[in-house]
């Protein structure tokens, strides 16, 4: 599953909850098992997006912070 080419979402410069909203709206149009990679700069996203994923049944595969950029990879419906 993790080998799928992830879809990209650029949420840089957006402050929470906008990265969560953009993630939520994008995932609405994705299928089970697809991967979304969200790039953000708000450190709040590192807490908010995984929380949103947990309560909505998606799985955070991993997160990575390089300089001021955060990447969060999510498997759609992977938490159910």
């Amino acid at each position: 599953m993790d080998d799928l080419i992830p879809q990209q979402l650029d949420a840089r410069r957006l402050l929470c909850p906008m990265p969560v909203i953009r993630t939520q709206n994008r995932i609405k149009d994705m299928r089970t098992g697809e991967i979304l990679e969200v790039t953000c700069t708000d450190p709040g996203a590192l807490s908010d997006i995984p929380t949103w994923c947990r309560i909505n049944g998606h799985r955070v595969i991993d997160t990575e912070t390089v300089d001021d950029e955060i990447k969060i990879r999510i498997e759609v419906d992977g938490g159910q």
Partner: protein
Amino acid sequence: MLATKVIIDQGIHVEGINFFTGFCVEGHTHAIRNKDRKREKRNNSLWVAEQLGIKLHIIDVIEEYKDVLLNPKHGYGANMNPCLDCKGFMVGKAREWMEENGFDFIITGEVIGQRPMSQRKQTMPIIAEESGAHDRLLRPLCAQNLPLTLPEREGWVDREAMLDFSGRSRKPQMALAEKFNFDDYAQPAGGCCFLTDAAYSIKLKDMWTHRGTRDYELDDIMMLKVGRHLRPRPNFKIIIGREDGENRFLEGYRKLFTHLRATDHNGPLALLDGSFDDDDIQLAARIVARYGQGRDAKKVDIEIKQQDREAYQISVQPMPNEEIPKTWMI
């Protein structure tokens, strides 16, 4: 959180909705100021949903909310807060969501008399009516003080299990939280909307007055929260970062605004908003120099970058503090 728990305990499936207007405090403040970067970063609505084990839908209503703020039928509170219109709008959006997603009724955590404008006994029916929710709007924390609603009449919820809270005291809510073993919850008593903040409201009105139009974009209302705002002349204002976190935030707007920064001393980034000529820029540069480490120097070099020009540099005398009138501060 309490109202939801009361309904969940009746065996009813509940999902949460959180609206983002652009004026929500917690959403903005996570990332900007350095002193806030070390604080625990928690979106309270997400945190509450996780504690309760319910789904949460965060809905962007920034565009639609403009009409609520600009044309409130019921007016404003102490500042620019259109609380009653806001409540009616949000319950109305919740009703739309309920209809689109096959839910049966809406609950809110409102309590009669809790807030002076939007949570009075007289305003409760106004919200129910203007939102179009009518008797599908249930307030579990004070339902026993209000007429029967559809979920109570139909027996979907037990009215006897609803509560009869009223008044400004939050002691009954705190007691209920203890009963539910909630030892952590979002701080009560507002503070979650910039429109209730006097200083923010003044900046918002200043922006409208000097632009000659009552309108805004998300970037506008974000920037009102950041930096020191000075209006030395009616035609322009200066936004000056107060610390590194704010300077970093303002850097994201450099392509949209003329910006200034000292090159021979450490100092803040400043953006100019409005229309200005070379004399205005000279004045702005002196002010910006005053807020940097060169404030006591005879001259400070300031780089200016305008959208349609190459960056250039001028050398200015920092403006002494006593020459900056308080009336310039917005």
